[in-house]
């Protein structure tokens, strides 16, 4: 188990020595039990950092935001930025590095292992607690310790951990500058893509019936897109409207170009949006599961992304977030890529 003091000491040290200009981590949130992402810049702020099962956010998102702010202000990064990163977060950082979003020396990764328990799924916990609001959650060995008005109780992690953690194959941040906690790679609680397989066991009609319901329910709030570190495009393709582009066309004008998807949150438009996003994330999504967590209408978005990931692995031998070098999935090919489906 990680001693949170180690995280704080590491951050404090780096900031005091000027080795990083800031550290992205988690601190106690203002919304009940859950932690919230934060960016600290002074050594004394390191004491506010926390590490508990509610640290489910993918902090790579904050790295992207930091980079965007620098770019818009036309500033160069200077010293690297530190980031506390779980296994999933580190994989996301690898993808961003692979895509040259920033340089390896621009980021100092303080890896943290979620060991055997992964992180919490608040919806599952709410069901378990039958309406009693939790005020705190902590790692307790392989399980979680949750505090409510009734007191502290231990809950088996297996019952309330996030679905993505059940199937996670790389719970340890392999890409790091320093790492805390034990490497529990191989904890394999459920087979990878187990949820995907269960879904695919259904026939075509059942699958459409399912997705049609999801696409009907989607309100196109774009929470999924907003929380995804890999959805970093300044102008998302679904926000565009029609326009002619000339050399003198400004970025702002370009942001208002061809309308591939209408704005109204109706089934066909929503389906196009979600499928487009899944395809744009193919080979890039590391299954951090945040999109599914933040969806206000409970659309099981991981299914779409996992489908693409499994195709990447099985059909193309490509593992998202595995290595910084090498081309992306859709910018490369193998001579023996499947082609029997082509007439």
């Amino acid at each position, binding site marked *: 188990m990680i001693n949170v003091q180690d995280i704080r000491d590491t951050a404090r040290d780096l900031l005091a020595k000027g080795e990083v200009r800031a550290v992205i981590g988690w601190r106690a949130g203002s919304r009940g039990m859950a932690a919230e992402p934060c960016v600290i810049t002074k050594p004394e702020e390191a004491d506010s950092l926390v590490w508990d099962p509610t640290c489910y956010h993918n902090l790579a998102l904050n790295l992207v935001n930091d980079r965007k702010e620098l770019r818009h202000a036309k500033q160069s990064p200077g010293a690297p930025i530190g980031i506390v990163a779980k296994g999933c977060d580190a994989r996301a950082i690898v993808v961003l590095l692979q895509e040259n979003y920033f340089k390896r020396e621009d980021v100092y990764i303080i890896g943290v292992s979620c060991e055997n328990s992964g992180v919490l799924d608040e919806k599952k916990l709410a069901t378990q607690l039958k309406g009693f609001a939790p005020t705190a959650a902590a790692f307790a060995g392989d399980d979680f310790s949750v505090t409510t008005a009734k007191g502290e109780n231990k809950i088996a992690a297996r019952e309330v951990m996030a679905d993505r953690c059940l199937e996670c194959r790389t719970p340890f941040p392999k890409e790091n500058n320093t790492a805390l906690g034990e490497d529990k790679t191989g904890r394999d609680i459920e087979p990878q893509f187990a949820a995907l397989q269960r879904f*695919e066991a259904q026939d*075509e*009609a*059942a*699958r*459409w*019936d*399912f*997705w*049609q319901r999801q696409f009907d329910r989607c309100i196109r709030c774009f929470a999924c897109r907003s929380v995804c570190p890999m959805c970093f495009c300044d102008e998302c*393709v679904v926000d565009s409207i029609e326009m002619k582009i000339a050399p003198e066309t400004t970025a702002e004008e370009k942001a208002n170009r061809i309308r*591939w998807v*209408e704005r109204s949150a*109706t*089934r*066909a*438009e929503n*389906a*196009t949006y979600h*499928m*487009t996003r*899944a*395809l744009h994330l*193919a080979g890039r999504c590391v299954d951090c599961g945040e999109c599914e967590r933040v969806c206000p209408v409970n659309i099981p978005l991981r299914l*779409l992304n996992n*489908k*693409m990931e499994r*195709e990447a692995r099985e*059909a*193309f031998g490509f593992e998202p977030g595995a290595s910084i070098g090498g081309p992306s*999935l*859709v*910018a*490369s*090919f193998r001579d023996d*890529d*499947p*082609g029997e*489906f*082509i*007439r």
Partner: protein
Amino acid sequence: MSEQQKYEPKIVAFLCKWCSSAGSDLAGVSRIQYPANATPITVPCSGSVSPMYILSALKKGADGVLVSGCHIGDCHYMEGNFLARRKLHLVKELLQFCGVEENRFRMSWVSAAEGAKFAEVVKEFVEDLRPLGPQEKLKAKRA
């Protein structure tokens, strides 16, 4: 009152300029008879076909979408069709995953000399699409 008309599937066909589009022209020039159900859209390369083209066609009510390019190894831009093969495999898998009928999206390699093959590809596609009926799942409902 017109009599019951046979359902004619509407196909949108993205044809690469260098091979497949030329192949379709050859089919025409050779006076090969084949169904007129495909609306051709010429693209520079099958590799330039974005998944959004296919989704957009389906959203606008296409009953079937065809993407056709040069044979492997013959791409005018060297690698375009290799990339198409990979990208469009993903599109095909995703559409099927969501419950869209497998036969609605198709890919083919048709060279500039294969007018007959192009006609055959379209003919087969129309026959495979007919029993499926109009594509309603991803079609945007305007009313």
